[in-house]
């Protein structure tokens, strides 16, 4: 009896839900936010969820252009001093007014967050002083010249000083020495909507770990009435079930459907949008004398020779990878960031020329090639292991016998950082949306003092490039900095210090009555999902 009545009853359920549904949006995400505290863990899931509730002084639009957020305008008074004009009439979810005090409190709290696995201090560490000229004018002084301050500020969520129990006067001091902070609530407290108070278009309604996160419309939002009454975000980590949830109508939208399922999703009448992302997939080659995993060279490291590196680049058929392995959802890359983003030069993609590659190898003294271990994660980037396999086959065709060493991401990153691979494939998403990010982390000389080259596990070093980059990073003038970054990038690519493969494309699938402007930074922002006209 029970099973017989089931379809009928389920049918009724759908019918009664339908009118409600128009005001409610549900999204299937591929991972889950680890905390509701926007200052706890720099993780894309936390950021994309947090941006619905909390805002920052600046924002980045879909192509990562910095635009005004809670600050209406800003100017650099001198190289290290900035004045921010804050927006008037902005209310927090608890009804209190947004003022400069909230901003100072928020930045002060960052170093006081305990047990953070990836702290936001990388953005606040460079701030020397903050003072409020009046309630809506803020002066920020930086320790060094930082042209990227407005970009960095996007990452620093503004939380309510009142809701978190600050005193009336909050005075800034670097490194967590601020006064007037009161008792600072820690990350777990943010599960409560009374603490997780921001200025964003949605307020936190409930957060059931592992199951769903619900946010509700904030009626007093300064930017106009938000589109949805409620937004439900559900983590569905496996690809297949996430697609099934969309097809079954459980959710209205999903992020990252697997490429092979896209034709099916489109065939069922859903819309699919995609955009080039800021994530470059690249090959990095180890430059140390005792690089492991190389054979047939009598102990020498052939990758130290720029001709060999060029040969590797020329032997790769990027079009074939983008078309066949990535199903067209990737674009061959000639740079470290897709043009026309800040600091790109529009450089041509390296051609596919295996004959020239063989000549170069012969010139470098390796007419018979050598053997190489290619490291890659197998669950981090889109079709990563297959791409690495294809690269290995292409290298084998010019004489470099390559074996692929694919492991799960957690193992890969540890091994890569321990310099276990002579050549590895990885990806880099430039969170700041400009060229300085990949240059500083991937190819600048590894230096613990200046904090550059952190992800340069090939230990490539080009002092001339380092000098140009350092100068660029101390230049406030955008036009000049753009030019210097282009110059620095060209120096690295001319030397084949790193080999760009392709830019990933990010895909979203949704019901046909929704629209979403695809974002370069790969974030799924519920606040940007609109009803189709």
């Amino acid at each position, binding site marked *: 009896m029970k099973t017989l009545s*089931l*379809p009928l*009853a*389920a049918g009724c*359920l*759908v019918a009664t839900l339908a009118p409600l549904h128009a005001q409610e949006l549900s999204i299937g995400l591929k991972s*889950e936010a*680890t*905390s509701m505290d926007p200052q*706890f*863990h*720099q*993780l894309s899931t936390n950021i994309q969820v947090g941006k619905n509730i909390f805002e920052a002084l600046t924002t980045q639009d879909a192509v990562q252009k910095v635009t005004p957020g809670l600050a209406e305008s800003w100017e650099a008074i001198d190289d290290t001093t900035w004045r921010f004009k804050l927006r008037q009439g902005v209310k927090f979810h608890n009804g209190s007014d947004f003022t400069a005090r909230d901003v100072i409190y928020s930045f002060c709290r960052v170093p006081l967050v*305990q*047990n*953070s*696995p*990836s*702290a936001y*201090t*990388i953005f606040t*560490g460079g701030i020397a002083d903050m003072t409020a000229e009046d309630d809506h004018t803020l002066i920020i002084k930086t320790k060094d010249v930082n042209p990227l301050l407005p970009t960095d500020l996007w990452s620093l969520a503004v939380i309510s000083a009142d809701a978190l129990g600050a005193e009336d006067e909050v005075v800034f001091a670097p490194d967590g020495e601020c006064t007037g902070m009161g008792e600072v609530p*820690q*990350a*777990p407290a943010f599960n409560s909507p009374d603490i997780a108070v921001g200025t964003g278009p949605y307020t936190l309604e409930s957060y*059931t*770990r*592992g*199951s*769903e996160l619900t946010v509700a419309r904030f009626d007093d939002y300064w930017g106009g009435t938000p589109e949805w009454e409620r937004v439900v975000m*559900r983590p*569905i*980590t*496996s690809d*297949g*079930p996430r697609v*099934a*949830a969309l*097809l*079954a*109508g*459980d959710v209205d939208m999903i992020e990252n459907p697997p490429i092979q399922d896209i034709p099916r999703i489109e065939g069922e009448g859903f819309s699919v949008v995609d955009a080039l992302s800021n994530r470059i997939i690249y090959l990095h080659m180890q430059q140390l004398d005792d690089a492991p995993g190389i054979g047939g060279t009598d102990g020498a490291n052939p990758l130290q020779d720029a001709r060999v590196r060029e040969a590797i680049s020329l032997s790769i058929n990027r079009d074939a990878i983008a078309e066949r392995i990535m199903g067209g959802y990737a674009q061959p890359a000639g740079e470290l960031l897709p043009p026309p983003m800040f600091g790109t030069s529009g450089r041509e993609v390296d051609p596919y020329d295996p004959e020239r590659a063989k000549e170069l190898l012969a010139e470098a003294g390796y007419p018979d090639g050598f053997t190489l271990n290619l490291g890659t994660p197998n669950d981090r980037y889109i079709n990563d292991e297959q791409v690495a396999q294809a690269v290995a086959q292409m290298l084998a065709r010019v004489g470099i016998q390559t074996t692929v060493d694919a492991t*799960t*991401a*957690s*193992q890969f*990153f*540890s*091994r890569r*950082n321990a310099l276990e691979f002579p050549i590895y494939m990885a990806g*880099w998403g430039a*969170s700041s949306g400009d060229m300085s*990010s990949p240059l*500083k*982390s991937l190819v600048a000389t590894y230096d*613990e003092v200046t*904090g*550059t080259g*952190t*992800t340069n596990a090939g230990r490539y070093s080009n002092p001339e490039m380092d000098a140009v980059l350092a100068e660029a990073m101390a230049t406030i003038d955008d036009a000049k900095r753009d030019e210097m970054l282009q110059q620095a990038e060209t120096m690295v690519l001319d030397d084949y210090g790193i080999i760009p493969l392709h830019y990933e494309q990010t895909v979203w699938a949704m019901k046909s009555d929704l629209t979403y402007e695809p974002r370069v930074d790969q974030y799924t922002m519920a606040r940007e999902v609109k009803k189709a006209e």
Partner: protein
Amino acid sequence: MIVYLVRRLGQSLLAIMAMAVLVFAGVYAIGNPVDVLINPEATQAEIAATMQRLGLDRPLYEQFGIFVKNALQGDLGSSFVYGRPALDIILERLPATMELALVALVLSVAIGIPLGVWAGLRPDSIAGRTIMGGSILGFSLPNFWQGMLLILVFAVILGWLPAGGRGETTEFLGLQVSFLTWDGLTHLILPAINLALFKMSLIIRLARANTREVSLQDYVKFARAKGLSGRRVVMVHILKNIMIPVVTIIGLELGSMVAFAIVTETVFAWPGMGKLLIDSINLLDRPVIVAYLMLTVLIIVSINLLVDVIYSLLDPRIRLSEMKG
């Protein structure tokens, strides 16, 4: 009885200790959690500071020493990822898994035993053969695939049931459960069936084999010869005597269902412990992994203990004091 219980508890403690050592060393060998957790733009100084904050800069034996010291005081450490006590995070997920496992268990027993006994009594009938054929399918089809197929048929094609998630929950005895609301129930059906199918097949085969064996025993023949009704013979003489192996299996399988419902939970995005374990392994969240597996050992050991007690109730010849564990 008491000696037996004490000995069993001692053994469990040893197992839990061994588990802690193995997992601790194992996760350490995989890699450094900070490499996975930190924003790649962080500088070397920030990476070092994070390692220190999470206590990962110390040598392994020292980290383990600190862990044991805290564990003896009931503190299993804080999750690297969530920044909250690992045990809290796991216990938060326990009710969802328990509910799923218990519903699956009830399904597999309620369907498995009658079908198994039926097939055992009439092994050559069409029904008996069909049941056995079906159980082979239940056994051999991969759990993951079964789950996807259930979703495809009932959620995507027919649209009767939701494809995943837990649905609406209500409070029952202080726990969040979903079987009391219609919405929760619809979410529970598919994952419970998915989890139950394998166990059901197991119980069918076990019940059938035992029924066939018991049916040939003298006391069953005698009961029939005495003119007892077929119903009474089956319910009292056969059923009671096939229960010991069935209870053993149910006990073992309940433990594994609670601990390792991972596949089902992942396919149906069910917010239980198994999914938490997978997520934690991917992020190398060692405190959660260690606490999870220690808790798992505890659950399995307790269930086995319970099974032993049930034995003695089912078969008065078995006495706990005689068991050597």
